[in-house]
């Protein structure tokens, strides 16, 4: 299996007026073709910052350094902004939490879907359109031929996320980064979208880096999982093993504090993560 993404000692520092914030403190992971890795963590753990810095979309102030940051063997951190632009939407694509703000409300779906490949690959409009219709069918948008010419507001939230996925797959990426793609959706829609992403990943054989705070998503999606806390990876391993017997106290706490019908007794107090104790452990 070929290596798609290799990240070694990635650091993200954000200078602020109160001093530098070390958002990501030297993390390493890699991702093979067709594999799904979940980066799990709570808000402020640096998981989104990690995802964004891989594609160079971090806040302009942030400084990203890495010993190694390679996509398909190409070092990302020596690329110019223009080469990075070339890469985004082709070899690597990203989908975000809120599909409404990620889509341009003034352009038709057709324009937004075809623009990228026409520019990156010089595909003719007609071919790009065919590919778009094909993908819309694949993500489960009915009557794709007509709906291609509609605007984002004419779709429901779940459909918009499907469109985002189709759009991300237009350039046939080897790596798809999904930053909490279902957090804003209803439970039933969430299940459908996750199911869709999983099916597509198997079918099109791309590597999937999934950012989430929800161990339920991990259980449903991941081959491997890395748990982030305070800008570091505190535990990684195969998803089923980590879920079954988590080693790090933070992972243990994170899994135990979710109520599960049948496992937790209704009405009982849930175990709570002692952040102070953890912080002490992390520092020592």
């Amino acid at each position, binding site marked *: 299996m070929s290596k798609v993404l290799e990240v070694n000692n990635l650091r993200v520092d954000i200078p602020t007026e109160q001093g530098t914030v070390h958002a990501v403190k030297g993390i390493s992971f890699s991702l093979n073709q067709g594999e799904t890795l979940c980066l799990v963590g709570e808000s402020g753990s640096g998981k989104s910052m990690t995802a964004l810095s891989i594609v160079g979309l971090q806040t302009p102030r942030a400084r990203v350094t890495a010993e190694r940051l390679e996509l398909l063997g190409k070092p990302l951190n020596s690329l110019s902004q223009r080469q990075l632009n070339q890469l985004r939407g082709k070899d690597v694509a990203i989908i975000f939490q809120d599909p409404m703000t990620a889509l341009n409300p003034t352009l038709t779906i057709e324009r937004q879907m075809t623009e990228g490949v026409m520019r990156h690959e010089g595909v003719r409009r007609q071919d790009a359109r065919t590919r778009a219709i094909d993908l819309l069918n694949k993500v489960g948008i009915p009557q794709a031929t007509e709906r291609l010419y509609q605007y984002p507001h004419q779709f429901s939230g779940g459909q918009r996320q499907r469109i985002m996925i189709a759009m991300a797959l237009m350039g046939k990426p080897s790596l798809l980064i999904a930053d909490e793609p279902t957090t804003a959706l209803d439970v039933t829609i969430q299940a459908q979208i996750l199911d869709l992403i999983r099916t597509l990943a198997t079918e099109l054989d791309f590597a999937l880096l999934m950012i989430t705070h929800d161990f339920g998503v991990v259980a449903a999606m991941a081959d491997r999982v890395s748990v982030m806390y305070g800008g570091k990876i505190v535990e990684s391993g195969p998803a089923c093993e980590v879920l079954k017997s988590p080693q790090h106290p933070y992972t243990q706490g994170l899994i135990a504090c979710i109520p*599960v019908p049948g496992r937790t007794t209704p009405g009982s107090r849930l175990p*709570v993560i002692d952040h102070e104790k953890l912080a002490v452990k992390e520092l020592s």
Partner: protein
Amino acid sequence: MNLAPANDPILEIRHVSRTYKFNGGLMKPAHSVKALQDVSISIERGQTLGLVGESGCGKSTLASIMLGLNKPDSGEVLVDGKPVLSLGPLQRSQLIQPVFQDPYSSLNPAFSVYDTLMQPLRIHRSEAQDRPRRIMDMLDKVGFPRQLANARPGELSGGQCQRVAIARALILNPPLLICDEPTSALDVSVQAQVINLLLDLKREFGLSMVFISHNLAVVEHLADKVCVMYRGQIAEEASREALFANPQHAYTKELLSATLLPV
């Protein structure tokens, strides 16, 4: 707690319907949305009702109607045996209080924590020299550090904000609390803390609670009785044990199978 006929209901919702009308504007025809259709629920004193459904199913409209902030087209809501719309705002607010979803937008950014809790006491003209003590007591009860009493919401974490919001709801000692997705905007570890807090407070104050959520696992943990709403109607109403052991309605089954669990 079982589903015996409600002898002493703290809240009764009787055949409530609500339709929203939109007069479309120049190019669009007027249309209406039936947010609630003939909804009836009753909650006994000390019971927790879980209200489950997807966004747009009428959960939040129902919450507003329970609080007396929105008028139903037909039907009525009785709190403690009295129609909520016949109560004055002061009386009503002593019986029923809300906790909302977004911890940041549920606190006024212009007020410190202390001032936020002071407002209800001022409105209700409580004993002036008693107020600081009541505020500090309430902060202790919700586990909010006293030394942060002068902080603004912007300086607090989501979990801390939600504790303050709960403190504000409880400072008038209402017997009934309406929690509208109070944990869905929080991290899971913070969610656990808030759930624990609600459980503790329920025991301590003998609170009745309506817990609105789309997370069935959380509802299973907190509720005695569960109502599943679907498109403005009650799809299924059952005790917790019955609903999770043997769901009847197709939508309930779908919800149960879609709930992701870390196992």
